[in-house]
């Protein structure tokens, strides 16, 4: 964080740290992050362990939320509004999109307040603060995995056989994780200074939902606007994910490219902003 650390090892193998005020942009200490990988693992594990403590149905929540959202969406958007679903049954069309979408929203909601929630630890002990929101986002992958199993059941039910495109699933999951991380780095660092973040967030995710192809296919967006539309990173992630599993219309390569670039910018920008905030974090929290 605040300090530059030079891991000059002396002949006795004692690391030497130098603590001094930093100025301007500070580079990431990747080596230090690597050295703290076990802590990332333990923090992720802790977040998973704690998540459903003292709830009556525990981990079942991971399934209930996307499932019932899907039911409601199918009823209102599928049946009543008759939104096209590219020839796919509407329930599975929306459920496949809800998986990455709800992973993203949950990650944001929990990660954005994570630094403030962990205030006591942050003001009492040093470790790379980046681990805190990262662990929260990674812990969400468990819910994602559980909800995913329902999707498999639905695919069997509807008799959908995935094509070779299914091999690209890890790529789209990775993109979803990177989007969630990128946005979480921004929001969690902002939340330290401005607690407004927690009030803006529900509103933001609601708008974002309609800007993403969850309840409708992106083919409904006029072609001329699609590149612009894909600036929303989740557009590319969701379309890609749905295509890879259900074999809907292949996503426009331009869209995937634009979303990919947007994700990279968001992620790197988030890292840099977080890094900048990190050095005054313990004083401001």
């Amino acid at each position, binding site marked *: *964080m*605040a*300090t530059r*650390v030079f891991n000059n090892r*002396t002949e006795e193998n*004692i*690391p*030497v*740290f*130098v*603590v*001094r*005020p*930093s*100025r301007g942009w500070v580079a990431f200490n990747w080596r230090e992050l690597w050295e703290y990988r*076990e*802590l990332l693992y*333990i*923090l992720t594990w*802790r977040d998973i*362990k*704690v998540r459903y*403590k*003292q709830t009556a149905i525990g981990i079942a929540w991971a399934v209930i939320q996307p499932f019932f959202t899907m039911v409601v969406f199918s009823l209102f958007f599928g049946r009543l509004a008759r939104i096209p679903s590219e020839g796919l049954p509407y329930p599975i069309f929306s459920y496949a999109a809800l998986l990455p979408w709800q992973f993203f929203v949950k990650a944001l909601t929990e990660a954005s307040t994570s630094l403030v929630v*962990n205030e*006591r*630890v*942050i*003001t*009492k*002990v*040093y*470790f790379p603060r980046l681990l805190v929101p990262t662990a929260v986002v990674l812990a969400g992958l468990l819910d994602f995995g559980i909800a995913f199993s329902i999707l498999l059941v639905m695919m069997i039910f509807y008799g959908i056989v995935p094509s070779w495109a299914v091999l690209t699933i890890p790529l789209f999951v990775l993109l979803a994780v990177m989007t969630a991380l990128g946005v979480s780095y921004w929001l969690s660092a902002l939340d330290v*200074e*401005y*607690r*407004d973040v927690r009030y803006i967030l529900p509103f933001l995710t609601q708008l974002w939902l309609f800007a993403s192809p969850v309840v409708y296919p992106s083919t409904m967006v006029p072609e001329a606007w699609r590149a612009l539309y894909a600036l929303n990173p989740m557009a590319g992630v969701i379309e890609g994910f749905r295509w890879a599993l259900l074999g809907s219309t292949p996503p426009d390569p331009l869209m995937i490219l634009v979303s990919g670039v947007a994700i990279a910018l968001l992620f790197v920008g988030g890292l840099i902003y977080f890094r900048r905030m990190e*050095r*005054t974090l*313990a*004083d*401001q929290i």
Partner: protein
Amino acid sequence: MSHVAIRIENLSKRYRIGEREPYKALRDTLTNAMYAPFRAVSSRLKGRRSAVGAQVPNNHIWALKDVSFEVKRGEVIGIIGRNGAGKTTLLKILSRITEPTSGYAEIHGRVGSLLEVGTGFHPELTGRENIYVNGAILGMKKAEINRKFDEIVAFAEIEKFLDTPVKRYSSGMYVRLAFAVAAHLEPEILLVDEVLAVGDATFQKKCLGKMGEVAKEGRTVLFVSHNMAAIKSLCSRCLLLNEGQIESSGTPESVIGVYLFLDIERGSIQYIRNSEGPFRFTRFWIEDEDGNILKSGSTGSYTRFVIEYQSVSNIDGFSVAMGIFDIYGSRVSHVSMMDQNMEISSSTSGRIKCIFKKLPFTSGRYFVTVSAYHHGSLVFLERHAVSFLVDDGDYFGCGAIKPGLRLGPVMLEHEWICEG
């Protein structure tokens, strides 16, 4: 070979007062946003000038100013000083929790910091799980925790409750477990803040014993404490911090001597450090019968302890208590409004006075832990918030003052009758 463990040069830390405000309201955010560009420019300009010695606006305080010292490998250094003197800030900078405003520190070796016991404990997790989480946060590797697991459990004496969530632990068990994990850290340099102030007397003794072992193993330790007995027995050298600067350094005996009579000229007025909250204490002092603020009390004389408070709204049902400790960390006594069924009723600011018609304390310095209760539940606690000095006095009013003779911290009101 130099064998230097820590070298600190002109280390300074400036805090903006109010930087730790709980959070910014939307109104503040908007006004701040308006001023932000100007502030950013001006702070940048200020930053470019030499930070130390530059004209500092009134809303900044130096928590640490131009501190330089060197610690050799294997030394155990005690750091003493009043609350707010900069002790914790120093440890926070060395452990990289916060960044210095200026200056430089060079640290040879891995640092383990123990600013609080139980950092990262999660109430829902079991004792076993918390050992891993807490150990990892403090910087232990999983293999290291595995290796020491049994030792930690034995030290904490919680074998039977290993798989119980820690929220069901008694506070004693909680503290024991927390300290046990921390005590098994093995960094080259250990930074310890007032962590021995918690737990019961037996456990404190055990902790001190463990600290002594750590010190003997040749590790470098910086040890902050209000417990002068612990400082004397553990440390080879001692530093006294006052208002962010090193006031004195040397053998524990000599530095403690300086500390005990620190700022005697300035009188007993002290500010009380507060965390955020609607109710806060502001100042403390001791005064005589006529309301003159005293530099020190004297045994047997009429003395009033005064605490000022402020509140954002009318308060009702508050009561205040003070725990009085000697410099060896033992509780001498405790005075509480609750014992006399007293409460503060309906005011936004005021003074609470505690009157001793005959001050019972013998000569020396005493620390006061200040706490506040709202309808009987604790809402504020600051350990060793302030201190006061007592000189020898004529307790029994018969001209018999025996300076230096201190056979215990309090005098007892009593009479003798000789029959026969």
